[in-house]
C-alpha cells in the first residue's frame, strides 16, 4: 500500500507530497528528501549510459525499516500517476515550478493510496 506519494521538481523541492498517516508528515518529508540522493545518483549514472532511452522507472530507491521507497511505483499505477501529472502540466493556468494544487491530481493520489494494497 502506498503511504506517501510525492512529485519532486528538478530543483529538488516537492511539487506535491501527500501521505496517509498525516500525523507524522515530516517523517515522510525526510524520507523522500533523503531518497533523492539515490535518484541523483541513478540519474547521473544513467546520463552516462543511456542518454536517449529514458527509463522512467528507476527501481527501488532504498528500503527503510518500515517502508520501501520507489522513485515511482511500477506498472499501471505509475502510468496513472504520470498521466495525471501530465494533465496538470497541460493546464494553461499552471505555472511550472509551483506547487500542484489540483483536485483531480489529489483524488488520483488518494485513490492510489487507498486502493493499492
Amino acid at each position, binding site marked *: 500500500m502506498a503511504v506517501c506519494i510525492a512529485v519532486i521538481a528538478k530543483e*529538488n*523541492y516537492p511539487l506535491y507530497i501527500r501521505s496517509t498517516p498525516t500525523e507524522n508528515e*515530516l517523517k515522510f*518529508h525526510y524520507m523522500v528528501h*533523503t531518497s*533523492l*540522493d539515490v535518484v541523483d545518483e541513478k540519474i547521473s549514472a544513467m546520463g552516462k549510459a543511456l542518454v536517449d532511452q529514458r527509463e522512467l522507472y528507476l527501481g527501488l530507491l532504498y528500503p527503510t525499516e518500515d517502508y520501501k521507497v520507489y522513485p515511482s511505483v511500477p506498472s499501471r499505477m505509475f502510468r496513472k500517476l504520470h498521466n495525471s501529472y501530465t494533465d496538470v502540466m497541460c493546464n494553461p493556468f499552471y505555472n511550472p515550478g509551483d506547487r500542484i494544487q489540483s483536485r483531480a491530481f489529489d483524488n488520483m493520489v488518494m485513490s492510489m493510496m487507498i486502493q493499492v494494497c
Partner: protein
Amino acid sequence: MSVPDYMQCAEDHQTLLVLVRPVGGVSEENFFRIYRRICTVSHPGVRDSQRALCIRYRHHYPPENNEWGDFQTHRKVVGLIAVADCCSAKDWPQAVEKFHVQKEAYGATLYDSRLLVFGLRGELAEPPRPDVAFYPSYDDCATVEKRVEDFIESLFIVLESKRLDRATDKSGDKIPLLCVPFEKKDFVGLDTDSSPVSVLLGLKRHYKKRCQGRMRKHVGDLCLQAGMLQDSLVHYHMSVELLRSVNDFLWLGAALEGLCSASVIYHYPGGTSGKTGARRFQGSSLPAEAANRHRPGAQEVLIDPGALTANGINPDTSAEIGRAKNCLSPEDIIDKYKEAISYYSKYKNAGVIELEACVKAVRVLAIQKRSMEASEFLQNAVYINLRQLSEEEKIQRYSILSELYELIGFHRKSAFFKRVAAMQCVAPSIAEPGWRACYKLLLETLPGYSLSLDPKDFNKGTHRGWAAVQMRLLHELVYASRRMGNPALSVRHLSFLLQTMLDFLSDQEKKDITQSLETYTSKCPGTMELITLPDGLTLPPVPFTKLPIVRRVELLGLPASLRPQKMKSLLGQSMSTKSPFIYSPIIAHNRGEERNKKIDFQWVQGDVCEVQLMVYNPMPFELRVENMGLLTSGVEFESLPAALSLPAESGLYPVTLVGVPQTTGMITVHGYHTTVFGVFSDCLLDHLPGIKTSGSTVEVIPALPRLQISTSLPRSAHSLQPSSGDEISTNVSVQLYNGETQQLIVKLENIGMEPLEKLEVTSKILTTKEKLYGDFLSWNLEETLAQFPLQPGKVATFTVNIKVKLDFSCQENLLQDLSDDGISVSGFPLSSPFRQVVRPRVESKPVNPPESSRAGDFSHVKTLEAILNFKYSGGPGHVEGYYRSLSLGLHVEVEPSVFFTRVSTLPATSTRQCHLLLDVFNSTEHELTISARSNEELILHAGECQRMAIQVDKFNFESFPVPPGEKGQFANAEQLEEERREAWGLEINSKLDIRWRVPSLQRSGEASVEGLLNQLVLEHLQLAPLQWDVLVDGQLCDCEAAAACQVGDPVRLEVRLTNRSPRSVGPFALTVVPFQDHQNGVHNYDLHDTISFVGSSTFYLDAVKPLGQSACLGALLFLYAGDFFLHIRFHEDSRSKELPPSWFCLPSVHVRALEAQA
C-alpha cells in the same frame, strides 16, 4: 568486543597497534605534545629490509577489544609507550608502578613496552633499564622520535619472529585453536584428542582443519602487518579454503576480510580513509594522482614489495603469476566483503566486526565511486544492532554515518544523519544536553538541505530546496542557539526563517514565529551586524525585505511651490555643450540612457524631501513597522523615520519617507531601514526582487528661501482649471461687479532660512471666452522691492489691482433693437423729416419685460481666472542660479452691473459733434446711479432701463497712432481692423468716462461701451474725412445759430472742402437749395421770388487731393426778410456713391434775412 571503531579502514589491517598512555601526573597538554611527536613515526623503515611497517597509535583502547586480537591481529595492542612526569625522584616508584599496571592490562598481547620519563635526568640509584628513557623536560627531548623508532624496530623483530615461528610450524602436530572471546566457553571441555567418539565422528579431522584454517588466517594477518602482502594473500586464500570446508563462518569471514584488506592495500596504496592521503608505503614513488586509482595491469604482472630485494625483482616470474591470482580484483573485493559481512551477521556477538567491515567496504566503494553499492553497505550498517549504546556512542555512530554518506556523495542522507546526531546530543535522557555540539552539527547539515544562511541567495529566482525540511532545520537551529544561551544567534536564525520561508509558512506559523521573535528581541534586538561563530562561520544579517514587501520606490520632487528651477542662461539650459551638432543619434541615445538613471528634478538643501514607497503587508495580522527611514549616500542626510501600521494582508499601501539633506551634491537613495518585531533591517534596493524604481539619484542644490503668501481676500475652494502644468499653491476668490476695481493685498512672508533677494511677478489670465477690456491685473512692484532683501521671518506686502471690465452689451437684444432702429443712425441732418420719428424714443422708457426670461440673461455671473506667479530666489541657491516660483490662483466672479441694451447716435447740431444714445439697464438688485463725463447722474432702480444721451465730439480716428508695427506684420487685414476698432473703442470710452455707483453697497465702477460699438455707430462717431465748411458772409456756419444778413445785400456763400482722407475725391457738383421751414412739417421750396442767386446756384468743386483744400464761391441775394435754410445738395454721380454718405454731411445753413435798416 563492544566498542566499534568507526574510523577503521581496510589498510588498518596492516598496522601494528601501539598504545600511548600517560602514567603519573602528566598534564593533558604535555601528553598530547609528546603523543603528536610519537605519531609522526607512523611508517618507519625497517633496517635491512624493503618492507614497510605501519604503526597505529592510540592513546585509549578498551582492553576488551584487545581480547579480539587473535581474531584480527591489528586489534591487538603490541606495544605500549607510557609517558610519565616525575618532578623528583620521589615520584619515580609511583610511575614505575603505574607503568607496570598498564603493562599488565595488555600484557597478554604486548610485544614490548617503553616508559618515557620527563623531569628526571636519570639521577636514580637504580641501574638504567633499557625500557626507560629519561628526559629533563618536554622541550629538551630531541631523541624521542629516535627512541620510538628503536622501539618499533624491536616490535618488528618480535613480529617477524612470531610470523616465522607460526609460518614454518607446518608439522601440524598440535596447532592451538585460536578463539574469539565468546567462543571460548563453547570449546571448554571438548577434548579433541583422545575421545574416541570424536574420532569416530570425524570431528578430529574437522577440528584440525579448523585449527589449521584459523592459524593460516592468523599467519596471513602477521604477514600483512610485517609488510609481506603477497605472502599474506597466499595464507588468506589457503585459510579461506580450509575454513569453508568446515563451515567456520566467523573465521571464514575474517579470512575473506583479510583477503579484501590485502587486496585493497595493494590496489589503493593511497589509502581509503580519505583523510590521511599521505598514508602509503614508504619509498613508494607513485604520483599522488595515481594514489586513488588501482594500478593498471594489476592482474597481469604483480610486483611483490616483499619480493623486492637489493638485486631487484625476483626473476622467478612464474611465482608472481601464481600470486596474481591471489590478489582480488576491485569487483571481487566487494563481493568478498559482502560474503564476509554475511558470515559475520550470523553471530550476534560479532556485531562490531560486521559494522566495521561495512564501514571499511564503504570506504573502498567510495574510492571506486560506486555510490549505490556503498549505500547498500551503509544501509546494512545502520541496521546492525549493537548492544545498548551510550548516548555518546550513538552520536558518534550517526556522525560517522553522516560522514560516510558524504563520502559517497549522498549529501541529503549525510545531512539527515548529522541532524539525527545533533538531536542525539540533546536527547532528553542526557543529563547535560550538549546544545553547543548540537548547534554545531546542525550547522553542518545546512549544505545537505541546500540551505545557506545568506538571505541574498534567496533573492534570485524560485526557492531552492525542500522548504518543509529546511524550515524544520531552521526551527531547530533557533531552538539550539537559544538553549546555548546565544539570543543574538537565535534572533538571527528566526529572522532568517521568517524572511526566507515566508511563502511556505501557514498563517498560524507566521503568528507563532513572530511572537517568539518578539519575545527574543525584547531581550536582544536583532541587528545588521555580521555574527561570527567561534568556528569561523559568519552569519550575514537578515534584512526583512518582505516585511513589508516593497513594490515600488519613487523619489518625489518638491511640491510645485518649492520646486527649484534653473534660470535660463543665454545659451539655453538644455543645449549640450559637448557636441557641436544639434542632433546626433549617438548623443540622443546616450542621453536616453542617462535620463533613465537620473531624475529631472532637484532637491533643496534644508528642505524636507520625500520618497514614496508602495508597500504591502504579507502577514495575516497587523504589521507594525517602526523607525522606517531612508538609507542614503553622497550627501549628509537627516532621515526622519516614520512608524507605520499596515493592516493584515493589505493591498499596496503608499508610505512616504522623509528627510532633510544637509549639504549639497548628488544624493543616492540606496534603500531603507526598518525595525520590525524588534529586528533592525537595512534593506538595499539592489537586493530587492521585482522592485520598480525610477532612479534613485537626485541632485541636491543649495538652500533657497521659502515664501509664503497670504492675501486680503478669502481663500477659495475653487481649483482653477489645470493648465500648462502650473500648480497653484493658494487660491483666492472675489466677487466683483462688472467694471469694478478691487485691491488685492498680498503678504509675502519669508518662512525659510535664507534671505529673499529677488522677486519677479508675472500674471497669466486663463483662457476665457469673455472678452476683457482694460488691464485685468496691474501692480507696482517697486514699493515691494524696496523692502528687499527680506530676511527670514519678515513680511512684505504687495498690492495688485484687479479691474474687471467685461462686455457691457447685452448682445442679442442689442442687435435686435438696432436693426429696427436703423433709421436713427442714418446720416440725415437734424432737420430731416425723420427726426420726429426718432425723437420720441429719447424719453425714459421703463422696461417691463417678462422678468423670468430677461433676468436669466442679465444676472449671468461670469468667471475670470488668473494666476499670479511669484518667482523668487535668494541665498546660496540664487548664486547657483536657481529660483522658486509660487502661484496664486485668482478666481473672480463677475456679476453684471449695468448693461447697455442699445446704442445709437444722433447727429448733433454741429457736424463735429453727435449724441450717443445709450439704453442703460441696471441688472443689480440695488439702486444704481450712472454718470458720464460731466453729465449729471442718472438714477436707475433695480431692473430699470433708461436711455442716456451723451454729447460727444466726433473722433478723428485717422489721427490715432497705428497699432505697433510688428503686430501688423503678422496679422492679416481682419485682425488689423479688429485692433483698430479696439483702439477706437478705448479712445471713445476714455472720452465718455461712464461710471456707475451703488450707493447702498458703497461700490462703484466703470462701464465701458467698447464692446457694443458696431461699425455703424463708429462711422457716425467718426469725423468725416471730407470736412465741409460753409461760410456765409465770411462767417463759419456750423451751429443752429442763424447767420444774419440784410435784405438786398448780396450775401457771400463759400463752400470749402478739406480732404483728410488718404485718397483724392471729387470733382463734385453741389446745388444750393434754399427753403423755408414753416415749423409745421411743411417745407416751402418755392422761393424763386424771394431769393436770387448771384451767379449760379450750382457749384463745382475740383478734385481734391489728400490733405488738399478746395473752395467755391457764390452769392445769394435775399429779396425779402425771413428765416431761410440752405440745403446744399449733391448731384448724384457715380463716383461719389463709392464714398459713405455720412462723408457728405454738410452743415445746413440757417440764414436770417433782415430788413435793411435804413
